[in-house]
């Protein structure tokens, strides 16, 4: 069996993981950067066709404190303000560092172009044309990570468990997908950067591979999660006609660059009915837009496929081409001519505000265990502003990598102990040999879970639906997960990988549903049809941990900003 040792292990090689790798190597650590897919090709970063928010002030005067105030306001009272300060204060440095590394931000002379975006009071969203921000920044980070002699990358290696010994993270057990063999990794610090949980939902916009594994690994290692009830549904995900070769959330930049009218099935504007205005500004917040769309469909005023229409027919073809050039041709290849057709859109699971609870050094409550990127919870409270997710990947990634390297230098040794890894290794071998022989496959249970989460723990929730979801999820976990049919097959055994993904998805789904059931109000992305309205008395975060196999939830006060600004 292969055993690997490194100072810092990073689980997940999207934007946050790659930035963390570069920062940890810069801090003097040897780094193992591991991804279950291909390094730099999976996760959410490459899917971000849009923008990165940072208070550079290149288009108009701006300041990180203004960016922070916008972020906190969008978060509906629940943001961890110290994480917000870190995010907004260091965002500009990261954008400029990426610029120095060759990311080709759209620019005019020496100044980067910055777009307006919903909820941002200044023009502060940087981008790479055309709708190429995510793939381009991922390529830049991949180049940086590949050029460092201190970073070893591993693709198609799925970490299954973090190994904890005496309360300290000391490495991991992983499955080498290609050989089908287990692998052990000894590390002095571990960074969880495996992204969010959008795969829990039937309709989701991110890569297919984010089943909440970072959260599940953190829980099983003894760390805490926060704000798990707040899943962001992107209001105008593409619905119809079938569109390939493009991200389903691509309509957002179209809308705020060019303006796009949202119309119900009767071709009427409707956002104004739900306590906001959209006229001329196209800047309605995401939670309100989702609410309006679902309510229109519910009232029988939806479009043919069960969404609403997005209309750009009032925009001249030359304006469409100026803004989106080759993208217009890709749309035409899909049979979509925006100058004369409407497209149908509806909410789609897009991002998770909640995640692993960390301090401003990205440390969890487990020694030597860190988190970065979307895996981190707390910075966005109950609702995230567009543009803040890639900023988060860069800033929290850099911070986690730097802190882990400092930790390693201080600690100097690893606490690796093969005995602590034994049970996780035994499980891989047992499953690989096709020991469980039930009727259903892991993938069929995943599909049922995705439907359950969409229907019962989705954009709108009720207490009864959440309770029903919780009882089915627990039944799946206890009665079905241990008895699924897994093909006993060697190389690239996707069945086995599906089982591990499902194991993570179940505990994370339970966390989301339990937190949603416990929050007896509506706030931001958490909308309870049976409890409309926000209760000022419930301005607190919910913290989850796993104790002896059972989840527990407690309330924690919202983390306020420090009296004096944090220094970088």
């Amino acid at each position, binding site marked *: 069996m292969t055993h690997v040792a490194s100072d810092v292990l990073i689980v997940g090689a999207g934007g946050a993981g790659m930035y963390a790798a570069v920062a940890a190597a810069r801090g003097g650590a040897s780094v193992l950067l591991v991804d279950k897919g291909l390094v730099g090709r999976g996760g959410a970063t490459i899917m971000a066709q849009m923008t990165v928010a940072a208070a550079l002030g290149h288009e108009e005067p701006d300041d990180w404190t203004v960016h922070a105030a916008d972020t906190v306001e969008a978060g509906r009272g629940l943001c961890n303000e110290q994480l917000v300060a870190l995010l907004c204060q260091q965002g500009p440095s990261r954008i400029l560092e990426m610029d120095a590394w060759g990311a080709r931000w759209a620019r005019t002379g020496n100044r980067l172009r910055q777009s307006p975006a919903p909820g941002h009071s200044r023009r502060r969203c940087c981008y790479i044309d055309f709708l190429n921000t*995510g793939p381009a920044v991922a390529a830049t980070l991949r180049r940086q990570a590949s050029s460092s002699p201190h970073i070893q990358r591993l693709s198609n290696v799925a970490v299954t468990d973090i190994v904890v010994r005496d309360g300290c993270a000391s490495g991991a057990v992983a499955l080498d997908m290609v050989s089908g063999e287990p692998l052990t990794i000894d590390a002095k610090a571990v960074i969880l950067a495996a992204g969010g949980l959008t795969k829990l939902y039937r309709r989701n916009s991110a890569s297919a591979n984010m089943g909440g594994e970072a959260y599940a690994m953190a829980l099983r290692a003894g760390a805490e999660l926060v704000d798990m009830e707040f899943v962001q549904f992107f209001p105008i995900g593409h619905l119809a006609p079938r569109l390939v070769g493009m991200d389903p959330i691509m309509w957002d930049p179209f809308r705020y660059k060019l303006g796009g009218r949202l119309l119900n099935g009767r071709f009427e504007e409707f956002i104004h009915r739900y306590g906001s205005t959209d006229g001329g500004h196209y800047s309605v917040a995401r939670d309100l837009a989702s609410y309006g769309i679902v309510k229109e469909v519910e009232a029988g005023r939806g479009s043919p496929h069960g969404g609403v229409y997005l209309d750009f027919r009032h925009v001249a073809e030359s304006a469409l081409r100026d803004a989106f050039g080759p993208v217009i041709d890709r749309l035409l290849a899909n049979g979509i001519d925006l100058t004369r057709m409407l497209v149908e859109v509806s909410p789609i699971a897009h991002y998770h505000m909640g995640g692993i609870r960390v301090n401003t050094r990205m440390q969890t409550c487990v020694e030597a265990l860190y988190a970065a990127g979307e895996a981190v919870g707390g910075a966005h409270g109950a609702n995230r502003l567009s543009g803040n997710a890639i900023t988060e990947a860069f800033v929290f990634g850099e911070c986690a990598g730097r802190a882990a390297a400092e930790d390693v230098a201080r600690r100097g040794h690893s606490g690796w102990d093969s005995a602590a890894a034994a049970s996780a290794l035994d499980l891989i071998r047992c499953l690989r040999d096709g020991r469980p022989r039930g009727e259903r496959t892991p993938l069929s249970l995943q599909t049922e879970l995705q439907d359950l989460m969409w229907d019962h723990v989705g954009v709108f929730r009720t207490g009864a639906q959440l309770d029903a979801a919780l009882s089915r999820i627990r039944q799946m976990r206890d009665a079905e997960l241990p008895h699924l049919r897994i093909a006993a097959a060697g190389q690239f055994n996707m069945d086995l990988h599906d089982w591990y993904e499902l194991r993570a998805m179940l505990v994370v789904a339970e966390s989301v549903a339990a937190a949603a059931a416990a929050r007896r109000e509506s706030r931001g992305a958490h909308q309870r049809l049976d409890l409309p309205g926000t209760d000022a008395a419930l301005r607190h975060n919910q913290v989850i941990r796993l104790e002896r196999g059972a989840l527990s939830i407690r309330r924690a006060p919202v983390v306020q900003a420090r009296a004096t600004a944090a220094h970088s």
Partner: protein
Amino acid sequence: MSGAINRPTALLRVWRGQPDQPGGYETFEVPYEEGMSVLDGLRWIRARLDPTLAVRYSCINANVCKTCMALVNGEVKYTCTARLQSTPTTVAPLPKRSVIRDLVTDTVPADERPAHLGVNGEEVTGKPPEP
């Protein structure tokens, strides 16, 4: 539901095999909707017919992960953007790569494989050897 029996379907001939076994084509029938991709069909097969079908993909249909390449009707294509036809579609692994399983080939860069680090039983470090 009315019309269920007349829903259109498409046929996918998919190469199955592993390095140490003789491979061959297996034909699957999947529900067909205009505009659907070859990858949509392969994912449907995994979800409903045979979850052991090995296929590499990450982003489903955005065509940004660039990992889903295969030989579609004899041409190298991204399965996420190649459209399924109502006539049978043949999908095979990339021709110039060795097969790991079914449609998955060794597209991982050599220095990103565990084998690069060491062989069974050896303790190795993530640091590269000194020059």
